[in-house]
């Protein structure tokens, strides 16, 4: 059981790290899609099927497409997808900061007195989940719906509104 988890974790972390270090933006986005699919596999492993499929639909399906569109819309020419890395010192500082955060978090997790006995999976059916969402959590569901609507309308307004009208600016 742990072997599967370690394999999923290594695949996810490896693709994420490669995506964050590559020069080509398109390759980064595609590798991150693989990484999100790995996280969905983790949810499946943990027994949260609904969250796994929500992750697949939202991240692998929708967000990756949106990011790809953003990459393709914000390039100057056909081959301009290279994101040159920042200065070497900044990359070194970033790696040091990330390694420090990882060391502190992993040490805290390893030393914490967490339950070590394998717990039975608290399986939750989709029917049960729907009852919870529409019953006890109906107010939060409405709030999230309003938030999504407002955020998407705001995104459209931000992306479409008021460009500086320079005739020679349009490629």
């Amino acid at each position: 059981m742990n072997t599967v988890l370690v394999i999923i974790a290594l695949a996810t972390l490896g693709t994420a790290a490669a995506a964050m270090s590559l020069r080509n933006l398109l390759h980064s986005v595609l590798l991150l899609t693989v990484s999100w699919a790995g996280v969905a596999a983790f949810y499946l492993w943990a027994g949260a099927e609904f969250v796994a499929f929500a992750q697949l639909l939202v991240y692998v399906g929708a967000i990756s497409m949106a990011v790809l569109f953003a990459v393709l819309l914000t390039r100057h020419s056909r081959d301009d997808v290279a994101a040159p890395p920042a200065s070497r010192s900044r990359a070194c500082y970033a790696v040091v900061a990330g390694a420090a955060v990882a060391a502190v978090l992993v040490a805290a997790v390893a030393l914490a007195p967490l339950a070590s006995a394998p717990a039975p999976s608290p399986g939750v059916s989709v029917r049960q989940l729907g009852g919870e969402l529409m019953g006890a959590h109906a107010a939060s569901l409405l709030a999230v719906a309003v938030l999504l609507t407002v955020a998407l309308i705001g995104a459209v307004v931000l992306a479409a509104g008021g460009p500086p009208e320079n005739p020679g600016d349009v490629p």
Partner: protein
Amino acid sequence: MSPLQLCLAFSSLLFAVGLTGALARSNSILVLLGLELMLTAGIVNFIAFWRFGPPASPATGVVFAIFAIAVAAAETAVGLALVISVYRHQRNIRLPEANRLKG
């Protein structure tokens, strides 16, 4: 290490990878993707504690994770719209050049 600790270590490392990416890169899309990785690490924590933590109401962690995914999707949409807006104004999406608020 117990499975819960392995899950938490996994999410910690995912968070650290996202943090490193967000700090090291100057392309705003990559910074946004680093933020997404950190959010995903948080959601992994929800699921890990729901699966292995002390028993609570059986659906709480899943409901929390679903709401977090919805909020992350909204955040990405607004972030990408901001990136496109910055590109329209500056013809560039590198963060060091995007240093003025005037349109």
